């Protein structure tokens, strides 16, 4: 055991062992056996998502996933809940498909119910009406929630009218227009074998998992592969928006269009992020400056790599602070971004980040759901079997100059969009941000949101946001 706080110099070899099968239906099945796992997780990802929403009925893909386990040709919603819940099971869905977990010994029950929902969901009119009403009520409340509105308006500033610029569940108006037949049509057209990636992790026998899924999905329509078109996204330029609400704090978002996961600079950007705004604790520069030194906030962070996907993500710097600190916070974000663009980090700073990344990756795979999430991402992005080890080697090879270069190439502090929600008007924000009001986007009339309430704040307070 080390007592000198020096991480091992060797780069660990890391993998999530799994078997890959193509089922008769065309679905890809990935199985990662894990002896002793108390929980089994299954994820059924359907390619497409909100991009497939019909115009005017935005939210169809999301509602299809959200309501798929509300009744099938074989079982009512009540029967599904009656089987699943006593076994510690749960299935939830969204625009990207379904995911569930269960006490490991009951994994075949979860497989059965999840496949039943995938292939036989009926979207009963009464269930759809009931659930839609709840969502509409929720959206009405969140229309006035500054935190929700700030995040949504920032996405709109960055992505414009592309579907990435809206919530997956659409707006109140589009949600109100969705009918049960829209959901049935979406499932029939898009929830097909060749668009599905199913990942399973638990204390399971892969051969048996394959037999079980073959049996349940034997009659699933194969369908066609997804046709995609390149996204048309707004140029990176400064735009400003604000959601005015009388609160103690203002939520500030500063950023712009980011990168794809396939970007060749991805590994260097991960390191840059950790130096700049995502390093754990207060080891990153933005947390150290804005929280630790200036005491501006409890919650502050910045990242470009964490949202990188098949489509471009965003660079987002966020802080929740008192309104009188808004200018200091914005200036602080810009100063730290410019600094990392002009000064390469010191060797100690980079060694710290490398120590973290090389040491923490092996810790990240304790949960079965984390493993299924990784397997699905690996399949969608086409990662090779030794991807994790390769990535660690890429991290180790990044130099201080690489970090400075990717910061200069990918960050645009003077062209960033800025959004505020809280006790600041758009004009006030434009003034403190030093952005011409002509650049300010008109506030979107659509108000959207989706977070479920979490009304159990009475029993804990923590040093950092969990």
């Amino acid at each position, binding site marked *: 055991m080390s007592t000198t706080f020096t991480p091992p110099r060797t780069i660990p070899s890391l993998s999530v062992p799994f078997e890959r099968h193509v089922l008769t239906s065309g679905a890809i099945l990935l199985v990662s056996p894990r002896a*002793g796992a108390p929980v089994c997780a299954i994820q059924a990802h359907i390619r497409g998502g909100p991009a497939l929403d019909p115009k005017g009925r935005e939210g169809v893909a999301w509602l299809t996933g959200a309501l798929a386990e509300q009744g099938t040709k074989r079982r009512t919603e009540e029967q599904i809940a009656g089987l699943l819940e006593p076994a510690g099971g749960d299935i939830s869905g969204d625009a990207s498909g379904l995911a569930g977990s269960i006490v*490991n010994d009951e994994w075949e029950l979860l497989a059965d119910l999840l496949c039943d929902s995938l292939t036989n969901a009926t979207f009963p009119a009464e269930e759809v009406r009931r659930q839609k009403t709840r969502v509409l009520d929720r959206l*009405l409340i969140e229309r*006035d929630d500054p935190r929700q509105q700030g995040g949504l308006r920032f996405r709109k500033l960055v992505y414009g009218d592309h579907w990435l610029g809206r919530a997956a569940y659409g707006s109140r108006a589009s949600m109100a227009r969705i009918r049960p037949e829209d959901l049935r049509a979406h499932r029939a057209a898009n929830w097909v074998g060749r668009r599905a990636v199913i990942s399973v992790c638990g204390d399971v026998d892969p051969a048996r998992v394959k037999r079980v899924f073959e049996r349940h999905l034997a009659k699933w329509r194969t369908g066609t592969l997804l046709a995609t078109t390149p996204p048309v996204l707004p140029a990176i330029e400064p735009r400003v928006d604000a959601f005015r609400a009388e609160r103690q704090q203002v939520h500030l978002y500063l950023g712009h269009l980011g990168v794809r996961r396939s970007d060749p600079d991805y590994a260097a950007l991960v390191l840059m992020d950790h130096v700049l705004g995502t390093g754990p*604790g207060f080891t990153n520069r933005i947390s150290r400056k804005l*929280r630790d030194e200036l005491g501006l906030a409890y919650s502050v962070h910045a990242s470009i790599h964490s949202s990188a996907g098949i489509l471009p993500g965003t660079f987002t710097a966020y802080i929740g602070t008192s309104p009188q600190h808004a200018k200091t916070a914005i200036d602080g974000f810009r100063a730290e971004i410019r600094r990392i663009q002009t000064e390469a980090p010191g060797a100690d700073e980079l060694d*710290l980040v490398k120590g973290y990344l090389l040491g*923490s990756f092996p810790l990240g795979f*304790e949960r079965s759901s984390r493993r299924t999430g990784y397997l699905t991402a690996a399949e969608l992005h086409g990662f090779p079997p030794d991807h994790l080890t390769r990535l660690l080697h890429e991290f180790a090879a990044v130099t201080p100059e690489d970090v400075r270069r990717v910061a200069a190439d990918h960050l645009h502090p003077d062209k960033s969009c800025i959004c505020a929600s809280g006790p600041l008007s758009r004009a006030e924000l434009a003034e403190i941000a030093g952005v011409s009001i002509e650049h300010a986007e008109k506030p979107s009339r659509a108000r959207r949101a989706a977070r479920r309430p979490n009304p159990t704040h*009475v029993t804990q307070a923590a040093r950092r946001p969990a």
Partner: protein
Amino acid sequence: MTTELPVLATKAGASIRETALANGLRVLLVERHLDPVVAVMLWYRVGSRDEDERTAGVSHFLEHMMFKGSSAFGKGEVDRVTTLLGGSNNAFTTNDHTAYWFELASDRFEAALLIEADRMRALLLDPLEFAAEKAVVLEELAMGLDDPWRRLTELAQEAVFGRHPYRRPIIGHADALKRLTVEEMRAHYARHYRPENAILVVCGDFDSRSTLRIVESHLGAPWPAALLVDEPFRPVPTEPVGEKRFTMTWDDECHRVAMVWPSGAVGSKEDWVLDVVSTLLTGGRLSRLHRRLVLERGLATTVSTQNDARVDCGAFWLMAECAQGVAPERLEKAIDDELARLCDETIPAKELDRAKKIIASGEAYDSETVSDLAEELGEFAIDAHWRLSLESLDHIRAVTVAEVRDAARRVLATSRRVVAWSHPTEKQRKSPAKRAASSGKRR
């Protein structure tokens, strides 16, 4: 001390050993070799329960300061060392305890023990750092004040716990925090951060015998005798003599209600029965309140309950959001009707069995990672005894239909509850656009 400790119990594939060092520190060694990971959690028996009006919030603020420098680990060093070793750390404060955790690869977790040993004995509490971190805590408090549920539950909590310190929010109040001095925090630290007031849990992939030697070498030094200080006065709430009601307003479209009843302490018979009651009411889609209020009658968008058992006494919470267009009185009447059913009618055995199975299945999730397991055992250990974590399912399985009915009658009586409503502001209610948006008819 370094002789082989016997395995006292097993849980989720882990073998549990326990000992106490000569200085009074209790140590739980929980060996499980599923992953090459170790969680180190140090629990102190101190929380908002140990504060008075003058020092309200000091336990949570001190938790922040535990990362701001000790004798051997200067400011930022705890995070720097953790990060360099590829680990993670955090901390949290509750009403009854404060906990610090690390998760590290199993070949380097000794660093966490060194850090904990140093900051237990030699925290710097530098006045400049104290002032800077106070600003952060005040921002954290402001963030909470922007959350309507937090405001509502704090209102109800203040009423249900009478004169007990549990009535105060863990984070404290801005006026008390602003005037809190570093000397007051130093006294709080000296009094509570001592080995006999703490429990160390090490959980994961390690060897118990060699690890105990390391624990002893870092955390086993003798301590001077504790100062004799009066305990804060903690009067357990007396039996309520009638319902208390409060209302507040919030500028959104929602009617929210928090109901809370005083209840029993952690580990009491009532604690187990109320776990079952909570699951019967809101555990899953077939639970009574969710089924009736949300799915069948469309009166609420969400409803939840929480059995919040604490060391001295507890509270049973019920929280719901009104569906749009539903009068709050209708929702409250429907809640009352369901609670009355629980008190008056015999619960079908099948329904009780379902609730017990749901609770039992939660065990798998409570032990999925070494940090989950360390938290589960450590929390029971610091508040009562770790064996309760192992015995809890036996207690749950033993709950009878009659006990559920009796607990519902005794605890959930209308005459002993606090009801706090949050309604939309007048401006919100009068907005034509908002009236139009929420004018849908309800069954």
